[in-house]
């Protein structure tokens, strides 16, 4: 198995790709392309944005001018987006939408794998119980109505009566039960359905979920790729659903589109489901999902109009170039549920990072503004704590660790790490994800920054992505750059990084920092069972203050993911949901 072998793959979504690649192994159909990608491109970095007063004091006039230009460009992009949204025209039926992604999955069954390469086509083929708008509100989908009992221990879901699978059989509560049980058994996100004790099916359209504890994320878990319904009569006939041939061919789905053709490693063609349960939808006849790994090729395809829509674009040079095209719109919307964060993690069990003051000193010593403005061209957002800034639980009033060299030095002094004859206090190492130039540049930047406070960093280059995963998941690191997704609700994607019970060597993205704090455990425990959103927000506020102060991680920024679409061709692009492109495209139409 080889994950991300390509050393030049983009600064994309390692986490998004991992499950796909792993599953590809299960299926014995692994191709290196499954997790490939490339970052060759033309960088147009704006030197004017590097206006860091600490390093360079002299103001330069052309710098301000360029900043102004940049702001104008940002505004005009926003205007274009509003204009596109405001033109309330009737959606048209027909047409083909061409979508391109750098990765194509080995299968499209979201009940057994996470990862966006499975999720994007998976949510077109399979309908979930619920869908979410862009403000975290649940909306009916396969479920007509739902009800959570006052004690939070019973969730009753009523299905719509006109929903049928692609083979014509009705979608029943038995299928719902089967699907959620498949998630429980096979999906990597164990906490997601962990509180579901049993599922009753009193009648074909009613499913009753009996929970051991109240589960605040249960409705979110019912949406997008986390809660799709698969037919029991198709996928229930095998002992090992992971090996089921219909995970990738002859898929019997429940969603707005049917699988027409799948050429592994190259493309997927989806066609309209004529018997879709939502009247008159979907609007488009056909979706062509094409794999284009090379950034430059994808950019050219977008510019030529060969591709109408791409997602998870993150390279500043690519975004800069696409932004200049008047037919295209770029938007960071549609990623708040996935919640991608990038940070610097410490091995809190190794010296010197077993000392909180050293970890805090490192956090202070890094100039985050430089990373955001220069390395990410202004496309990424600052992130201050464990939860993504796009979430309702985003951190508030936490210590931002603003760049402060003196404070960092003072903390190191306090911790007893005084400079030796060469001015060096600490010698340590730093790992990074071998996934493209930006990761490496960021790592070298941090090395230079830490030198200023007397920390001598040796950068450790991993041979490939798998080697990095192995190093980090087995705790064989001092510090590492990392990228972790929130996956909708803190219960699913945040708790795992901080729970002292989730230190599982060898498993990717567990509590690799080996952070252990009883108070944090207790608060998360309560927040994970609290149903009231405001009370939860208070608990997560408390949790984040504790964690940010303990600093097992130096929080840096969000991943600069953008969805790009041709606004002259596409109406209702799939960005008005917290799940973005991982939500059903049944309202998208071709102008």
């Amino acid at each position, binding site marked *: 198995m080889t994950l991300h072998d390509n*050393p030049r793959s983009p600064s994309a979504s390692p986490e998004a790709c991992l499950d796909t690649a792993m599953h590809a192994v299960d299926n014995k159909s692994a191709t290196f392309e499954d997790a490939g990608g490339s970052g060759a*491109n033309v960088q147009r970095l704006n030197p004017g944005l*590097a206006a860091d007063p600490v390093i*360079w004091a002299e103001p330069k006039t052309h710098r301000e001018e360029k900043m102004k230009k940049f702001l104008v460009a940002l505004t005009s992009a926003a205007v274009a987006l509003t204009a596109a949204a405001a033109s309330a025209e009737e959606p048209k039926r027909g047409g083909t939408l061409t979508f391109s992604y750098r990765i194509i999955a080995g299968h499209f069954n979201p009940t057994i794998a996470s990862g966006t390469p499975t999720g994007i086509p998976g949510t077109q083929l399979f309908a979930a119980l619920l869908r979410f708008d862009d403000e975290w509100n649940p909306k009916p989908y396969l479920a007509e109505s739902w009800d959570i009992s006052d004690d939070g221990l019973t969730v009753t879901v009523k299905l719509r009566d006109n929903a049928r699978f692609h083979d014509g059989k009705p979608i029943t509560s038995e299928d719902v039960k089967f699907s959620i049980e498949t998630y429980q058994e096979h999906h990597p996100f164990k906490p997601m359905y962990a509180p579901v004790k049993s599922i009753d099916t009193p009648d074909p359209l009613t499913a009753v979920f009996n929970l051991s504890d109240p589960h605040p994320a249960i409705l979110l878990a019912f949406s997008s790729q986390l809660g799709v319904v698969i037919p029991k009569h198709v996928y229930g006939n095998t002992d090992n659903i992971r090996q089921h041939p219909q995970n990738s061919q002859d898929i019997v789905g429940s969603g707005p589109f049917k699988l027409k053709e799948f050429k592994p490693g190259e493309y997927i063609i989806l066609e309209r489901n004529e018997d879709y349960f939502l009247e008159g939808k979907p609007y488009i006849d056909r979706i062509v999902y094409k794999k284009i790994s090379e950034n430059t090729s994808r950019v050219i395809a977008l510019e030529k109009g060969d591709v109408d829509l791409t997602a998870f674009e993150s390279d500043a040079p690519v975004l800069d170039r696409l932004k200049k095209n008047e037919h295209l719109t770029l938007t960071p919307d549609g990623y708040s549920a996935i919640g991608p964060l990038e940070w610097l993690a410490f091995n809190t069990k190794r010296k010197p990072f077993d000392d909180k003051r050293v970890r805090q000193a490192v956090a202070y010593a890094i100039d985050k503004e430089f990373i955001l403005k220069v390395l990410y061209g202004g496309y990424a957002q600052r992130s201050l704590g464990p939860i993504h800034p796009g979430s309702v639980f985003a951190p508030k009033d936490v210590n931002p660790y603003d760049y402060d060299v003196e404070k960092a030095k003072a903390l190191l002094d306090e911790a007893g790490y005084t400079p030796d004859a060469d001015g060096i206090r600490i010698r340590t190492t730093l790992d990074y994800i071998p996934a493209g130039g930006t990761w*490496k540049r960021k790592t*070298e*930047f941090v090395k*230079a920054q830490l030198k200023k406070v007397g920390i001598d960093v040796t950068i450790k280059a991993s*041979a*490939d992505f798998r080697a990095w995963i192995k190093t980090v998941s087995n705790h064989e690191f001092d510090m590492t750059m990392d990228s972790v997704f929130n996956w909708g609700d803190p219960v699913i994607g945040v708790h795992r990084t901080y729970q002292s019970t989730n230190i599982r060597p060898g498993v990717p993205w567990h509590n690799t920092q080996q952070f252990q704090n009883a108070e944090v455990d207790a608060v998360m425990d309560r927040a994970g069972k609290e149903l009231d959103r405001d009370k939860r927000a208070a608990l997560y506020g408390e949790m984040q203050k504790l964690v940010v102060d303990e600093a097992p991680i130096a929080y840096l920024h969000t991943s600069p993911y953008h969805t790009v679409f041709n606004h002259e061709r596409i109406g209702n692009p799939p960005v008005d949901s917290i799940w973005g492109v991982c939500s059903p495209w049944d309202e998208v139409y071709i102008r």
Partner: protein
Amino acid sequence: MTNRPTTAPENGPEAVRVERPVVEFLRMYVRNWAAVAGFIVFSAIVFAALFAPVILAVDPFDMVWMPFTPPGQDGYILGTDNLGRDMFTAIVYGARATLVVGGSAAGLTIVIGLTIGSLAGYYRGWVDEVLMRITEFFQVLPPLLLAMVLVALFEPTLPTVAIAIGVVTWTGVARLARAEFMRIRELEFVKAARSIGSRDRRIIWRVILPNALPPLIVNAALTVGIAILFEAALSFLGLSDPNVMSWGKIIGDNRDYLLDAPWTVTIPGVAIFLTVLAVSLIGDGLNDAFNPRLRER
């Protein structure tokens, strides 16, 4: 230089002026002005590399000024790179890594190539068969790809890079050494050495090798240039030690910004070009000086 068939005149009024081989070699070398220029350039680069910490007592990884300051502005004669590191410092320090990798890779090439080539050429027969099949195996592998695989398998550090380059470039030296050994082993003085009972080891080391050296030395000089280019290519692809500044690394780090800050890529490119050119010219000069057929020119 043993066994050189020079006959010293005993006496006589018209005594032929006799040169010591070293002097003769130098005279031949100096006659090639391009080779002299190459030597001067290369010496300057080696000097800069050796005394880098003395000339510039700074860390090439320090971010000193605004990123992408053009050459000459604000006192930075070669400008700054994408993280605001001084290009001049980076070039001077980069010479160290570049030369160390180039030199040790070339050394490794000579050691492996000479060992295999001399054994194959001297013993011939099945030894030759086996060793040459091994050489051919390495010859048909795409060298850059093999070097990439080797570096990726182990951690990308300077020794790994040097070894990877050495492993992929020795085949030419092996074939050259084999040909020289095959030719020389049939000459009279080798037969003479054998007839007085010299052992194989002595014949290989003391009799044949000194006579086979000249073309190998020329080849070694050229190999240094090839190794430097390999190092640059690997660094360009991101397969180099991120803790060591080298010219290839500077290019690799900045290649995304080629259109906005061309100097960040062209300056280390020129440095590589000059070094490889200088080394090639030296190799050319050595060839002239060693090759008797060119002496009458």
